[in-house]
Structures are given as structure tokens and as C-alpha cells.
């Protein structure tokens, strides 16, 4: 058993979708709330800002909202959920034999460019998620399954945006 085990293949997308649905369903049933990611990420970011520059955090209204009156921005269930997600990802990738440090990229792009694009895209998504009051997880997936109108608008826009820009960055991936 010491020998490196081969990677477990990814689940069939339908099975994965079904499993993800069960997780989301349990979340709704137990917590009355959906899954999310960007909200927690924001809270973690605000914690960082508040730790480094508390006055600044108190001055920016949206950050002050979370740190007001000594409140801890991390004291939110989404943050804990994200912690769990990190753990889940870790366990899943480890048990599938996929846990290794590296950069995943297309065949024709340098590591530096890949990382640069990743961070740029990330920033863009961060802003976008706040505009939309949620990201693909919180808004599209969770809201979508509740048939929330805004979520569906958002979801369509995501695919729209993605397909629209895909052509311009195709070199990154192919």
C-alpha cells in the first residue's frame, strides 16, 4: 500500500451533480440557508484588513459594518462552511491521490501569465460577486434551486459573460 496509488477518476458529472444537490439540500434543510463562498472570502479579507489597519477598516463603511462594536467578521456560519469546504477539498484530493502542489495551465501559457490571469480574474470575480450579492455557489446554485428570479438572471449572465470572453482568452486554455 506504500506504492503511489493511481488517481481516482472524477465522478461522473451526473453523479457529482446529484451529490452536490444532496449536500445543498441538506444545507437548506438543516440551516435554512444555502451554500456560499464569496461572502466568507470577503469576511476573511475584512478580518485581514482590520488586523493590519483597523482605522481604515472602521472608515470604509462596508467594512465597518462587519467590524462594528467589536464584532468579529469571522463569526458567521459561511466562514465555517468555507473552512469545511477547504477541509473537504483537501480530504477529497488527498484520498483521490490528487493532492500535490502545482500550477494547472493550458499547454501554451507560462506559469507567470497563468498566475497573473488567475489573480486578475479573481479580482474581477470578487467585485462581481459583491455586485451580484453572491457568486456561483451562493447566488447561482443556492438561489437558483430556490427559483429566485435574481439568481437565474445572474446564472444566465455568468454563462453569457463566460462564453463572451472565452474567445479572447482561448490561448490560455488550448
Amino acid at each position: 500500500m506504500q506504492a503511489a496509488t493511481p488517481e481516482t477518476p472524477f465522478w461522473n458529472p451526473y453523479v457529482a451533480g446529484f451529490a452536490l444537490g444532496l449536500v445543498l439540500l441538506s444545507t437548506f434543510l438543516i440551516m435554512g440557508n444555502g451554500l456560499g463562498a464569496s461572502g466568507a472570502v470577503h469576511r476573511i479579507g475584512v478580518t485581514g484588513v482590520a488586523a493590519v489597519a483597523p482605522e481604515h477598516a472602521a472608515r470604509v463603511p462596508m467594512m465597518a459594518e462587519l467590524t462594528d462594536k467589536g464584532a468579529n467578521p469571522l463569526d458567521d456560519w459561511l466562514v465555517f462552511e468555507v473552512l469545511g469546504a477547504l477541509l473537504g477539498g483537501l480530504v477529497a484530493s488527498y484520498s483521490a491521490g490528487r493532492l500535490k502542489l502545482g500550477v494547472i495551465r493550458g499547454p501554451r501559457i507560462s506559469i507567470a501569465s497563468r498566475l497573473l490571469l488567475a489573480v486578475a480574474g479573481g479580482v474581477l470575480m470578487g467585485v462581481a460577486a459583491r455586485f451580484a450579492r453572491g457568486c456561483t455557489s451562493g447566488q447561482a446554485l443556492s438561489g437558483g434551486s430556490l427559483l429566485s428570479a435574481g439568481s437565474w438572471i445572474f446564472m444566465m449572465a455568468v454563462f453569457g459573460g463566460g462564453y463572451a470572453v472565452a474567445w479572447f482568452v482561448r490561448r490560455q486554455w488550448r
Partner: protein
Amino acid sequence: MTEIDLQRHSHLIDPNLHIWGWEIPVYLFLGGVAAGVMVWTSLLFRRIPVAERSRALRWLPFATPVALSLGMLALLLDLANPLHVPRFYATIQLTSPMSWGSWILLGIYPVTLLVGVAALTGPETKAVTTWAPLRWTRLGRLVTWGRRYAQAHDHGLLTVQLGLGVALGVYTGVLLGALGARAAWSSAILPPLFLVSGLSTGAALMMLMRLGHDEHAALRRWDMVAIGVELALLLLYLLGLSTSGATSRGAAELFLGGRFTGAFWALVVLAGLLVPFALETVEGVRRLRPTVIAPVLLLVGGLSLRWLLVLAGQA
């Protein structure tokens, strides 16, 4: 609407019963672990010839008296008058599970010690007999004698140990199950539930040791069965409660939306049973190197189960 005004505040009784704190769940948990170890060592010893046993497995029978002693220490701490402990052995009360339990506990020590010494290798036996405390008390010879006796009655002793293990596991459940006045305990499911949970936690304790591959694999298979049965029994337990009278329904509510819901489902069912089951499945199917995660979670889940049930009975 009914208002009940109770002008009484007996210490430990009002407004909520809290006669049993951490001691009893720990006692029940360690008792369960001991029961599990007894059952599994008996079975493994029968399957695996002496020569092929791993070192860890050889020494495991001794885990029983250790766990049991710790558990009994917890029980002793709970007694209002520890000095009266010998009273347990001054009588046999046929209707009292606790009386039965005391005698079973007493019987377990010689049996498990004999099974233990019988399984040791020669050098190990020597190490034991020359271990300072035994040497000073000149009990080393007793060990040697016991080993001889045990090896002669190997088969019988293992059978007795198996029986006592099951009895012990059942007893930990009967102890609470006999208290019909407490809705959460008033269930016939508790004895088998605690037995199965004891088997599972016992296996978990064993899996934490450096067992041989086959030993581990066998235990894991048995444990997965135990977990499955335990889940089913838990379901039956909750179903049973929620389909009985109002007070029983109230007890079931504690786990289905009430005070203990989160802890029960998160700690016992999810973290304590489903996750380790999944991990063990993965380990088994993918033939992964076993980790400590699943056994530790099982132990945590087993302790949580008893803790929550002891609390729920007093709610």
C-alpha cells in the same frame, strides 16, 4: 395551557435532573470500548494463529482491564459515598442491572488477564514476570501459572471472554434502558445500540494500534457492519420514541429539532458514523493506507452518543 409551579429545589434534581455528569458517560463509553475489544480479540484470536498475530494484537487483551479500570474510576467518582463501594459485592440484586454489571465487571478481570497472558510470547512473558512490581510482590509466578492454565484452556477462555464482552456491552445499555422513568432511556433499543456502538468503538481503539494488514482489514469489515447496524438502531430508537406517548415524543424531539439536534446529527451521526464509514469504505475499496481519522472519529462519536443520551435522559 398548563402552568406548573413546583416549590421544590432539591439539589441535583430541580429544576432539571443532573445527577449524572461526565462520569457516567465516560464509564459507559469505556465499558463499551472494553466490550468491543473483548469481542474482537476473541474473534481475531480464533482466526489468526498465535504465530501470525501482530505485537499490537497480542497486547490488546490488556486494553480491556485498563479501560474498565478507568471507567470504574469514573463511576467511583460519581458515587455519593465511595466508601460504600463494597456494598455492590455484598449482594446480588436480581432486578438491578447495576448489580449485574458490578459482578460482570468483576468477572472480566481474571478472564481478560488470562487471555492476555496466554497470548504473550515467551520473551514477553518473561518481561512481564520480571516487571518490578510483579517481582516484588512475587506475583510473577502467578502469571506464569496463569499462562500455563490459559494456554491449556485457550478455546474455552476465548468463548467466555466473547460472552462476557457481549454481556458487558449489553449491560452498558441496560443500565440506562432499565430506567423507565426517563423518556429518552426508556427504550429497548438501548442495549443492542450500546453493544453495537461498543463493538464499533472497540474496533476503533484496536485500529489505532499497529495491527497487521489482515487484522486491520478484518476489523474494518466488521466495524463497517457494526456502523451500519448502529445507524439502523439509531433510526429505530428515534422512530420508537417518536411513535410512543407524549413524553417519549418529547425525548425524541430533543434530537429532532430540540436541544441536542445539532450535536447529535453532527457529532454522532455525521462525524461519528457516516464520515468514518465513508473513510473506511474508501480505505477498503481503494486499498489506501489506513489513517487514524476514522478510528478517532468513531471514538469521538461513541463518546458523544453516550454523553448525549445521558444528558437527554435527564433533560
